[in-house]
């Protein structure tokens, strides 16, 4: 029933690595979206980035 300590440590290490991979992916996703926003802000200015005419983006 008891697992070999070396095998258990290996499983723990593998899971920590998997968790790091997924957290890194999440971070990359967040940074990618923020980078797109920063690029657009730089290209078109703050006014256009903040201002939304009524009806733009959704019909309500």
């Amino acid at each position, binding site marked *: 029933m008891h697992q070999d300590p070396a095998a258990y440590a290996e499983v*723990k290490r593998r899971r920590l690595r998997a*968790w790091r991979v997924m957290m890194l992916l999440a971070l990359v996703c967040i940074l990618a979206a*923020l980078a*797109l926003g920063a690029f*657009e802000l730089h290209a078109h200015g703050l006014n256009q*980035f903040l201002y*939304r005419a009524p009806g733009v*983006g959704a019909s*309500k």
Partner: protein
Amino acid sequence: MVLLVGTSSRMRARSRKRVLPLLGVWFFRGLLVIPFAFMAPEIISLALGRPGSVANVSASTADVLGTSSFLLFVMMLAVTPVYTMTGWRWHLILRRDYGVAMFFTAGTDLTLAAITTGATFPGGPLGRIAGHTFLLFGTLSVFLLIPLTLTANRGAMHWLGGRWKSIQRLTYVLWVTILIHLAFLFGLSSFFLDALAVSAPLALLRVPVVRRRWRSARKARTNRLLRIGAALALIGLFSIGYSQLVHELAVKGTAAFVQRPPSD
């Protein structure tokens, strides 16, 4: 003979117990095709390059697929509170199904927005998905769905072990980014208030102390009146917001289906 009759009625009751949840699960799974069914005529027209199809998709995509994505998100979030309140387990599988369906719906919304909303947003495809504050938070929400969807399966649960839950907790970050997206889009009115109305009961039933007390009271069959009263209040608040969102989807979805969307 009596023994045989008793056994067969028990078997019938047992099979009914298995069939009804299965029907329930497939009913709720069937609802997942609705957003794509609403958008299908416009998307097919777009693929065939028919005149006016770009403008139609541009006008419909946020209203139909955006609203659908949020409704799917809400349904996914409702799975755990329903378990807390009732103890049902048959619907738990829907949490994954609705999460994955939300990814595909929101991803399609983002893709169609990047392709078709050039008349509304200047600056090319990137400007159409990140050129405004509300667009940026919408895009961020879709991007956050990537790790969540990739880990929404048994293989990932096994791969990540006990750490799987901490990845899935990104759902709460997603919840916040969606609400910010809606706040930028609608201000403190209409759709955003509906989103708050559906979010509040779902958030309250996730508070550990509330969840724990509700579950133990349900198991011990105590505080029945209090539980019924609280359930009615929470379901009532949820229904106020939810019915508005469904109404919005029904109106805009029907308009999209007949390819007569409201112009922006």
